[in-house]
């Protein structure tokens, strides 16, 4: 497009342009009113501290150069039996490892995070990471970021020995290109939401049970929908102790190849298809006492703390996918012509683009504002998660509509974005469960209010 202005707007150098007009105000006025418009991504990046600006730039560079070119083919690649991996995914995981994206929960030399970045919250950095990765490809983005979710219970256990024994060797291997992944296994065939909500957990019958044996524990049962469960080297498995309920949940680290442990199948998913969601089977899987993460019966706490850390990045996942859809749609309307004019010149198109920019900006503001806290709060994390994932669906709908009858073509990316983002309304607790998590956070306030006279 070479036009100096879009239809319905004045050019930047027109005397009626607000930018031109304001630039002519006296210097003292200009100091508080004049600016030069920047592109959306740069404008947001500049709001971050310098070290995070660089981090965001690095993430974008990796996502756009490594994930984006493989996104469409990864989405329609043949569904493989659990444990088998497409070479493209192996390559991407290896690159992610070398770039430091599989080891960024620990500082150098144990991990890849720059020491200076520890001044900022881990959650905010995770959010920056997921937005960029998922804006390029949700499937590959999940394959990478699921590993960080899997290692969080170890990190949050605060047990330096576990961190040293399990995270550090995996991180070092990953940084050398040999991706050593983690997976987080809480969901059970009979307990989806029950694994993520206290009231439900009270009534749930645990499926995976740990029975005491000499030197450790034997796990039996099944977990389902475990992201990257079939390719992970280390799985943080949450199991109830024999004869007890969910309050006895304990986190066990199960190593790939342990006898009795098997990924029995990978799900055929609607989207995020370049990553796997596996059903895991445990038949008398021996876990030594040394592989218990945290203390016995601390699993519920580690699970909920992990979810507080991970739900905000899921909000950013939704944002990233929505941004990917928006960018594809903007690219389309700037190139595709109707009656000799690029679509972006038409007012009905401009209205929808503006709405998409507003929706994604609102999501980013909510995330960045709340993710800055060093201690993530359940209510804030959950509200960001459901607000952003609902908003992302609206943005993807608009992106598909903007492409019109070409919106349903896989090659145009936006339909993939819709399929990908639909999962964000479900995983890490359905949006209904996340709404209830907000209420749980503030229940004392409501109860106190209820006790007071009207």
């Amino acid at each position, binding site marked *: 497009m070479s036009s100096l202005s879009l239809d319905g707007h004045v050019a930047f150098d027109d005397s009626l342009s607000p930018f031109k007009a304001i630039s002519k105000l006296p210097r003292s006025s200009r100091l508080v009113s004049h600016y030069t418009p920047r592109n959306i991504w740069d404008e947001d990046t500049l709001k971050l501290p310098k070290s995070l600006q660089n981090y965001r730039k690095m993430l974008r560079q990796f996502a756009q150069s490594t994930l984006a070119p493989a996104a469409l083919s990864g989405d329609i690649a043949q569904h493989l039996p659990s444990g088998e991996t497409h070479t493209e995914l192996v390559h991407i995981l290896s690159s992610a490892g070398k770039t430091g994206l599989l080891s960024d929960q620990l500082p150098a030399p144990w991990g890849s995070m720059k020491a200076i970045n520890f001044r900022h919250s881990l959650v905010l950095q995770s959010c920056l990471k997921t937005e960029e990765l998922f804006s390029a490809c949700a499937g590959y983005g999940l394959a990478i970021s699921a590993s960080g979710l899997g290692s969080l219970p170890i990190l949050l256990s605060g047990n330096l020995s576990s961190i040293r024994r399990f995270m550090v060797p995996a991180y070092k291997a990953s940084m050398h290109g040999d991706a050593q992944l983690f997976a987080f296994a809480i969901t059970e065939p009979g307990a*989806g939401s029950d694994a993520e909500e206290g009231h439900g957990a009270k*009534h749930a019958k645990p499926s995976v049970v740990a029975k005491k044996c000499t030197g450790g524990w034997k796990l039996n049962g099944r977990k389902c929908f475990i992201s990257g469960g079939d390719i992970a080297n280390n799985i943080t498995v949450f199991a109830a102790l024999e004869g007890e309920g969910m309050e006895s949940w304990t986190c066990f680290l199960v190593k790939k190849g342990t006898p009795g442990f098997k990924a029995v199948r990978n799900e055929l998913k*609607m989207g995020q298809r370049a990553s796997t969601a596996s059903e895991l089977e445990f038949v008398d899987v021996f876990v030594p006492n040394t592989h218990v993460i945290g203390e016995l019966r601390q699993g519920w706490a580690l699970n909920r703390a992990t979810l507080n850390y991970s739900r905000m990045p899921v909000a950013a996942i939704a944002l990233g996918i929505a941004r990917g859809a928006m960018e594809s749609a903007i690219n389309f309307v700037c190139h595709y012509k*109707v*009656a000799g004019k690029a679509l972006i010149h038409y007012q009905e198109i401009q209205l929808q683009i503006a709405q998409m920019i507003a929706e994604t900006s609102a999501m980013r503001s909510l995330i960045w504002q709340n993710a800055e806290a060093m201690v993530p709060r359940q209510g804030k994390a959950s509200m960001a998660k459901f607000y952003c994932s609902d908003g992302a669906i609206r943005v993807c709908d608009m992106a598909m509509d903007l492409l019109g009858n070409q919106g349903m073509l*896989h090659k145009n990316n936006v339909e993939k974005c819709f399929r990908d983002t639909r999962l964000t309304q479900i995983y890490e607790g359905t949006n209904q469960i996340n709404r209830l998590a907000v209420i749980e956070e503030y229940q004392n306030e409501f109860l106190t209010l209820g006790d007071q006279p009207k």
Partner: protein
Amino acid sequence: MSNLKQEDLEPILDQVKRFIEQDVEPIVAQHEVIATPLQVKSLMKSALNMGILDGGFDMGISIWENPNDHLSRVLSTQLLSLLSETNVGIAYQCHQYALTQWLRNELGLIRENVDVLDTTTISIQGHYGLARYSLANYLKGKTTQDDMAVLSDYFNASELSPCHVHGLDWDTLLAPVLDKNGVIQWQLLATDSLNRTEYKHSHGFDEISTWQWSRITDNQVVINETSITPKESKQLLTHLYAINSLGLMSIAQGSIKHALSMAKEYCSIRVQGGKTVINHPAVQTLLAQVSYFVYMANIQVQSACTRDAFEDLGILSLMRSNLHSEACKAVNNALQCFGGIGYMQDNGIEKVVRDNNHLRLLNGTPTELKLFAAAWENYA
């Protein structure tokens, strides 16, 4: 004139239900296993033999055999709705086939071998949207020079701006073209005079493909071409869009009914927090919205079949705009009732979501339909 009577509908629909149970359901029972083109073709032949599709037998019961008749329209929408309760892709293929046959008959391009499945398809839409206001202005007979420029581009089907059709493989195409007098005519084109690309991975309609086609300007083989008057052209296209609107709405209607029944069934079994999920207000409110919309969609389709609505493309466009947007929200709510399992292809509900998105984008998105209606109602 149709000989169809109200009392004929129930036995016809019963027969079609049996066809669906015996022939269609076994093929599409496993949602993650996509019916092959051969299987869909075989179903189409059965539908043709049963008279669900027009085989030239003048039975008066086929889809879109006599859309001028109210009862025929009601029957056609109910047949499509029934089919889409089982499978949207197959319902759409039947609609597309019936629409093509209707247009062929209107244009006088009668087929001879009626027992063989016709492999002509129809390209209803230009390369993008609904030509903003210009198509509505054309149909209303109030085109400006700008409108003619837009329409010329809209129906151009060049390599840079190809058009799309959805369905099984085809060997001839009925496509609109703007003639030198500014009248929309119809051409029957052979595949060897077209660039065409098959896309097997579209958003929905897994059973059929999306085809992109454009004209090869120096090798245009036109098998047949109409030479109709401006009045005939407008009437034909208005009718075609009206029938198409009814078809797409009834397919969406059937599919959300299906989504509701799937969600209700699952929620009555699945336990969370010590009780079946259907007892949780979070799920009840989702289901209530789906349920209400099933009711509303039924009323909308019935209302769209009435003569007043059928003859008012502006109203039909607004109905479609609303129905498809709401249908997408409803089936999304239905999926949400399933939690994680709803995201898996073998469950089937995610397919209904994709199919409804696909329906929303076909032949005018909600925004495009609103612009069309605005021009039709002469808001400007």
